[in-house]
């Protein structure tokens, strides 16, 4: 059974849906360790700093994006760990997953159309292609 799970979260509705699926999988096995990963996006750093009142407020607002997911896990008594990484979301998650080894990666899909995907690039698509473990994409 899956024991070491990674849930990639960006604070969106989609990642909350992915978290719901993660809960279902985790509750099948109470040995299950789950790691919530949030990537601070390089290309948003400038914008974030410019619009934040200070470092503490920025950290707090990022942490706040994770609270719905964290609340979900603690309400189901599932132990979890939060890791905050920095970089471009796709490649950063891929390097992290391949370096630490997981049984399953769970990620929400933004549900972009083909034009948006061409311009923005699909994070979940990149991850599926390049990580060495099963991936669950939740739409």
């Amino acid at each position, binding site marked *: 059974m899956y024991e070491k799970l990674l849930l990639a979260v960006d604070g969106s509705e989609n990642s909350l849906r992915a978290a719901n699926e993660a809960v279902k999988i985790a509750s099948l096995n109470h040995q299950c360790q789950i790691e919530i990963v949030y990537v601070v996006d390089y290309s948003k750093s400038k914008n974030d700093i410019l*619009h934040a*009142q200070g470092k503490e407020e920025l950290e707090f607002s990022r942490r706040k994006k994770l609270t719905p997911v964290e609340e979900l896990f603690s309400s189901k008594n599932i132990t979890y760990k939060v890791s905050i990484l*920095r970089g471009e979301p796709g490649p950063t998650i891929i390097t992290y997953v391949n370096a630490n080894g997981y049984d399953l990666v769970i990620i929400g899909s933004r549900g972009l159309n083909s034009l948006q995907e061409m311009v923005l690039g699909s994070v979940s698509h990149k991850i599926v292609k390049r990580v060495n473990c099963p991936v669950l994409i939740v739409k």
Partner: protein
Amino acid sequence: MLERMKKEWFSNVRADILAGAVVALALIPEAIAFSIIAGVDPMVGLYASFIIAVTISFVGGRPGMISAATGAMALLMVPLVKEHGLDYLLAATILTGIIQILFGVFKIAKLMKFIPRAVMIGFVNSLAILVFMAQVPHILGESMVTYLFVLITLVIVYMLPRFVKTIPAPLIAIIALTAVTLYAGIDMKVVGDLGGITRSLPDFFIPNVPFNLEMLAIIFPYSIALAIVGLMESLLTASIVDDMTGTDSNKNKESKGQGMANIITGFFGGMAGCAMIGQSVINVKSGGRGRLSTFVAGLFLILLIIIFGNLVVQIPMPVLVGIMIMVCIGTFDWSSFTYLRKAPRTDAFVMLATVIIVVATHDLSKGVIAGVILSTIFFVAKIAKINITEKVINSNIHFDIEGQLFFASVEDFIDAFDFTVIEKNIVINFSESHIWDDSAVGAIDKVIMKYRENNNSVMIEGLDSTSKKLVEKLTIYPALTGSKTST
């Protein structure tokens, strides 16, 4: 100490060298364009970028940050160069450095964090607008080919990174389009038409200016503006690099480092500079983390100029303009439009006012200073709101004071009382308030005095301990804060 130096310089050698090289390539067109904006030879910006980057790699407080000749600084120098020439600019650059070191020593740099975000957003937006406006004269009214080249450059710099990630797209645009121009013999304005490139290292010399008060009076206003704007952009960039790398940096050390870099660049014929947001982001994204990356950026830049100098003068101006338009688009804070709608009215107003003042005066420092003053006034007005509720309990009149009592709120405070009552017991409750200064104490005294004129008895309660101390120290009525003050 040695351990830390080793970490800051040599913990990331391979990636630092690669990232530094990428940054050097991206720096060249900007250094040339900013020289043209300032109205000096391209070498002034190129030497500045070389010397500032190399110096700051040793003395800066934020490893991995890139400092060089910048648009913000170039824009401030325009009138000085136009009226007094290059030597005055170099003298102003040295004085800028001295001021920045003083700011660092006296920890004034720390005050920069009080610059409100509305002003910061206004600053980057007006910077983008001014740099864009400076590009327009180079292409407006030129040939159709000029417009076409700008367009092709923009297409290359925006589309190519989708497919080619290793080589910076602006470099490809420069090489490809310069080659096309030379090969096809297209007649177009080139960088060489606006100034020459010297293929040598800079020399040390003392700017040729008269050393007297008159000269100082000319350069001082420019130096102070350069020092403030330079530190502001440098500390903003440092915070962005801090955030991207998840590490902290020493802001006072950075201010002193910026100062030293400007002093040295002034003596080597370079213009004042500061940290660059765009280039620092490129550096971190390319893997640069340590001081080595900044050092390599500066060194590689001057090597490229020495080797390829005679090709650099052949770069068509429209290509340079296209690249600068990309820089402007990258600098502008596009979420400002959402900000204007969602931020508090006063913040949105401050942001707009900063932009309008900068664009109208062509002076970034004026917009920033006006923005800071405006936000201070708005802030005082906001916290000066005082709320007084009156209720009657057992024929005693109770006043509950809510808000900060200080020089800006005392007038509203006094106006809220009705002094026509006679022979009543009056209780004023300050438990939701705080007394800040002597005008607040004076106002309380005045209220008590007026009530007593009509034989009322006044009692003060609920003062917190610091307010109580202040009142006891300053009031003209002894035992005012006692349980009951009788007439």
